[in-house]
């Protein structure tokens, strides 16, 4: 019988070879962290827009993410084209978002956050049950898009999935697009104005209700597309939105509520801290501690890592890294 206890010693090989191997692993893990971060940005961008500009805490953001993933899986399975599924995911999420706004959220802008939390929490339960009734409980299968399957060796000896690189690029493109929309376009200007003084914008003859419906739908599209991106990577199943929602809120809070730039920086920070913590914290602690304790502490600390980072940032900058000046 084996006793518990960590095998510390790697197979003996030359020190130089070992160092280069560790270096390669490190580069690969940084890439992994970046990818997780960019993915988190895709999920949290819509959340921070709705939260920051409209002042609504939308717990059902994860449900929109799930709707996106389910739609993408179903349509791409039926049509054989991932990209058709991707488009459908955006459309379905936009529709769901617009419906949510018109039927429910519109009544909540003036109510306090507790009411919003209650209603959107109810929405989570409602959407989960609805998805169960439509699709059943078996997780859906969803394949990689053909054009992005396979892997490339960015780091020699460590093939990296092309799809993950695609997610990084898509996320960065999304960030640039959002920045352009909000800072450089007329719609963006109206949205910013509306977040500062709703009545005044309305008095100037802008249909603020329609603007908010559009904005909410846009946030929903971002969530839905994030779901479509996530589909090939994670299990497409009921409740998949809730597991990602907490991380998305951490990102939003770190970045500064309402700031897209903050969401990007916050997301990448969270992705790197989480991935590198899981990958290396134990080895790092092993330098000072006995192996068993290092393993225990490493696992515990790495699961707390992002929350510790969030707490530290909030101590130094209570409104997040990039506080939005306008406010609500």
């Amino acid at each position: 019988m084996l006793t518990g206890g960590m095998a510390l010693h790697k197979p003996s090989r030359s020190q130089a070879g070992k160092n280069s191997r560790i270096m390669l692993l490190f580069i690969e893990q940084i890439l992994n962290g970046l990818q997780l971060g960019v993915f988190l940005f895709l999920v949290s961008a819509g959340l921070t827009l709705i939260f920051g500009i409209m002042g609504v805490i939308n717990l059902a953001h994860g449900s929109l993410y799930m709707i996106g993933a389910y739609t993408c899986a179903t349509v791409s399975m039926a049509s054989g084209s991932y990209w058709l599924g991707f488009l459908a995911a955006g459309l379905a999420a936009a529709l769901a978002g617009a419906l949510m706004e018109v039927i429910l959220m519109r009544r909540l802008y003036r109510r306090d956050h507790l009411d919003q939390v209650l209603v959107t929490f109810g929405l989570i339960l409602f959407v989960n049950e609805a998805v169960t009734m439509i699709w059943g409980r078996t997780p859906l299968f969803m394949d990689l898009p053909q054009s992005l399957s396979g892997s490339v060796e960015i780091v020699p000896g460590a093939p990296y999935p092309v799809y993950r690189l695609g997610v990084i690029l898509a996320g960065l493109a999304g960030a640039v697009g959002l920045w352009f929309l909000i800072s450089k376009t007329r719609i963006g200007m109206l949205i910013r104005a509306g977040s500062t003084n709703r009545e005044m914008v309305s008095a100037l003859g802008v249909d603020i209700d329609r603007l908010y419906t559009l904005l909410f739908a846009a946030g929903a599209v971002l969530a839905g597309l994030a779901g479509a991106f996530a589909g090939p990577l994670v299990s497409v199943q009921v409740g998949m939105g809730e597991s990602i929602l907490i991380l998305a809120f951490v990102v939003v809070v770190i970045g500064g509520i309402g700031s897209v730039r903050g969401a990007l920086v916050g997301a990448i920070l969270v992705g790197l801290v989480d991935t590198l913590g899981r990958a290396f914290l134990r080895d790092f602690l092993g330098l000072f501690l006995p192996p068993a304790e290092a393993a225990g502490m490493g696992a515990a600390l790495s699961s707390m890592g992002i929350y510790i980072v969030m707490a530290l940032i909030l101590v130094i900058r209570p409104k997040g890294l990039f506080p939005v000046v306008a406010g609500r």
Partner: protein
Amino acid sequence: MLKNGVRLAALAFAVAGFVAPAAAEDAIRIGLITTLSGPPGYLGEDMRDGFKLAIDEEGGKLGGAPVELLVEDDGLNPGNAKQIAERMVRRDNAAILTGVIFSNVQPVVAPIALNNGRFYVASNAGPSPMAGAGCHENYFVSSWQNDAMHETAGIAANNAGYKKAVVMVPNYQAGKDAVAGFKRFFKGEIVEELYTQLNQTDYAAEIARIRSDKPDVVFYFLPGGLSINFLKQYGQAGLMGEIPIIAPMVSMEARILAGVGDAAEGIRATAHWNADLDNAANKAFVAAYRDAYKREPTPWAAQGYDAARLIASALKHTGGKVLDDADGFRAALREADFEAVRGAFKFAANQHPVQNWYLLEARKGADGKLSLATTQTIVEEHGDVYGAECKLN
């Protein structure tokens, strides 16, 4: 007007609530408390449907005795489960409780039945404290003791000649138990233990470490959807053909396979039951289940069915008596005189199963569809290591 309508509807529901339980006055009540909501809801769904199938096949009876099945969702919340169990035992007078999926819920539910002189038949979880010193004469586990599927993974790794293993589990009690179970029989070296977070969706960091460690085999335990996340990403990283995987069946069954798709080809799993096991009871069960529910049976469905059939065998012996002849019913349960769909089945002295464990492999059939095929018997008549501490008999 609308308000009146609502009130009327509420009243109608209330009346219906009073009337319904009176319908089957002399039926034996069986309380099935299981997890029907959230991501693990499919486990409970299969458990319930497997159990119901056995009742439906007898036209509302088990072992010739009329039964009434009360089904409630615990929401994976021990607090909820406790309230439901108390209601079922005290108000509904349920004679038998069963159905709990999770090891953190069962220690709350089972004692409520046992302390009130009722029976508890565990149809999924078999946590170690209740297999050893905490065993009880009215507590029967018809599924497996938790350690068994991990222990048998260790044996399977030995059989395959693997010398170096990486183990990966979530950082909580069941995960640590899985590692302990695997180590109990694995004779090679564990080169790395990776502890993940519960609810983790991205496994890129762990996969990079596995690639760098180059073990002979990966043993991992991740429940349900987490397993799908990991397997998809493992396949995309190009490791599925490179470093083989052995997993316990909680991480690889028909529903998980459907979610992972072709990327799962070649993965091996340990299980006490599989849809292709060659015995008459199993063939009938698999056909009836597919026919009734239009989906593939999972181990949870088979366990629900076996639990119901075990209860049926005891009811047949006692002529439909449970609490009026508790000693007789208990003795009849111990006999386990029924054709289990998993094949040979008997109870050890601690009333936990002694049964065979099989190695399954995800393979493409003649129709090109991936399914789990039984490839070998890992170990026969495998019990558990806790029985010695049990003071029954």
